């Protein structure tokens, strides 16, 4: 019988799709091994047989405890339930982070307007030269690389900023605040600098289509990072580690949403924003429309629940 069990221990972890018969066989093997292990521990402590059983049982335990593969329903649950839940839970933080971004943008704008020489701290020589000669750095984007490549580069850059705003929240929120403030200062500084050379409206025109969602996503990631920091500072579970894990698990779907939204923003920034053929009205429509789509997505209105499910959810438990 142990030969058959050994074969099962070898095969079970390798199976990616399991038939009901195979699953039953694996469970039966697991039960048998666990029973033998319990006896072996009692009768033969620290023996080769016990060690072999211990190892075999652990291997089957890992193989048996695997997340089921219901790809469709898991995606649906992610978009319909988990993302809106996570977004709702950080709504308050998102407002505070948006305020911080706004305040730091204003600070950056004031700083560069008052001390223009400080622009060298946030912009490269090439950018400064270009603006001083009446040309925005965004004008040349499409001459350097095609829109698709620009989109990909912008997307990856934004993902790094978003991931950073979330992960650095672990440093008691200081990392997140630093990243948000830095981004705000840079945005405000660049606005003031371009305004000084009469290119402020050009820059606004550039960021109109993709900016609303991009900045909102950064705020959302910052809010998630702040929530993460709160889970460490004020744990709601017995240990800080457990609290961090639960919080990260809860907020993970929000990062998936952020990545998807940034993909869209990257495409807009690569294909629409640098193209002078698109009018301001069109850019405004794209920017505002995409922002509304983002709100619908995050609030769960894009994937509404079936009415029966909603009714069940609302039914009081006592009934």
């Amino acid at each position, binding site marked *: 019988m142990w030969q058959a069990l050994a074969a099962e221990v070898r095969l079970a*972890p390798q199976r990616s799709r399991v038939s009901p018969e195979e699953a039953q066989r694996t469970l039966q093997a697991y039960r048998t091994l666990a029973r033998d292990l319990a006896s072996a521990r009692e009768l033969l402590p620290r023996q080769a047989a016990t060690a072999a059983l211990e190892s075999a049982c652990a*291997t089957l335990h890992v193989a048996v405890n695997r997340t089921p593969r219901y790809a469709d329903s898991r995606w649906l649950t992610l978009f319909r339930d988990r993302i809106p839940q996570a977004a709702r839970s950080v709504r308050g933080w998102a407002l505070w982070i948006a305020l911080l971004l706004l305040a730091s943008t204003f600070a950056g704008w004031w700083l560069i307007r008052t001390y223009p020489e400080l622009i060298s701290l946030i912009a490269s020589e090439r950018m400064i030269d270009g603006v001083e000669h009446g040309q925005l750095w965004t004008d040349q984007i499409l001459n350097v690389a095609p829109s698709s490549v620009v989109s990909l580069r912008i997307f990856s850059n934004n993902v790094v900023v978003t991931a950073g705003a979330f992960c650095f929240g*672990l440093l008691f929120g200081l990392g997140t605040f630093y990243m948000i403030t830095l981004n705000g200062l840079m945005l405000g500084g660049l606005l003031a600098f371009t305004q000084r050379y009469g290119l402020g409206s050009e820059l606004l025109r550039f960021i109109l289509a993709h900016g609303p969602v991009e900045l909102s996503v950064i705020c959302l990631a910052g809010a998630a990072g702040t929530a993460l920091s709160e889970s460490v500072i004020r744990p709601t579970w017995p240990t800080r580690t457990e609290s*961090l894990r639960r919080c990260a698990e809860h907020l993970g779907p929000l990062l998936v949403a952020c990545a998807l939204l940034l993909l869209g923003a990257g495409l807009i920034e690569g294909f629409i924003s640098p193209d002078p053929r698109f009018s301001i009205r069109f850019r405004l429509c794209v920017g505002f429309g995409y922002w509304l789509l983002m709100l619908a997505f995050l609030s769960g209105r894009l994937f509404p629940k079936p009415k029966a499910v909603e009714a069940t959810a609302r039914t009081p438990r006592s009934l």
Partner: protein
Amino acid sequence: MATEELTVRGLTGVDLKLDVAGIGTRAYAFLIDWHIRVLLCLAWILLGVLLARVQPHWLHIPPGGRVLASLMVTLPALVCYFLYHPVLEVLMHGRTPGKRMAGARIVTREGATPGTGALLMRNLFRLIDTLPILYAVGVVCCMLTPQRVRIGDLAAGTVLVIDESKSRSKSLERLGALAQQSSLEPGAAALIEDLLDRWQDLEPRGRSTLARGLLKKLDSAMPPPQVDALDEVRLRARLQDLLGRA
């Protein structure tokens, strides 16, 4: 230094013990993975450069499109480099080729295979673990935590454990074969096999005493005075007979 263990509650109520992988195993697995990634990226870049030089029309590069060509070559390589761990860990259920070679795998604190979300979260926190250079934060965290985990593992609720499923199954197979061939209890058979395996390493007097003790208890066909009369060679042969008896 004793190996740390992760004790998890089995589905049948029997606790299971998994050996936690230390920094050495982690570093070994990472180095193998790093070499694989770098080799893959270099191979891709080399292929791209060769194609761009020999058959530029295959890549549809317009004349003078050097930036585009370099991006077409470097971007997939970068994607391969940075997505290596998350993609392979998800596809291989918490393992990578490096971890496989190092005999390690990622499990949850309950000993289960981690889900996609946990694995992605674990990789996301490499941003912090790699700070400031060479995974310094991760290494310090591994040294300080009881289960030798880095920050990514803390956030994802995962642990890197030693996975010897191959040698385990072999060992179980061996015990199975013994149980089939011998009329002895599996534990007793394992005991004799253990003694025979270590026969050369043991002191002659000690191994004879052990063998006699075992034979007196387990070999009902031979009376104790006869066992006492056996010399070392015969003791060993008798133990082997006992194991192979149908």
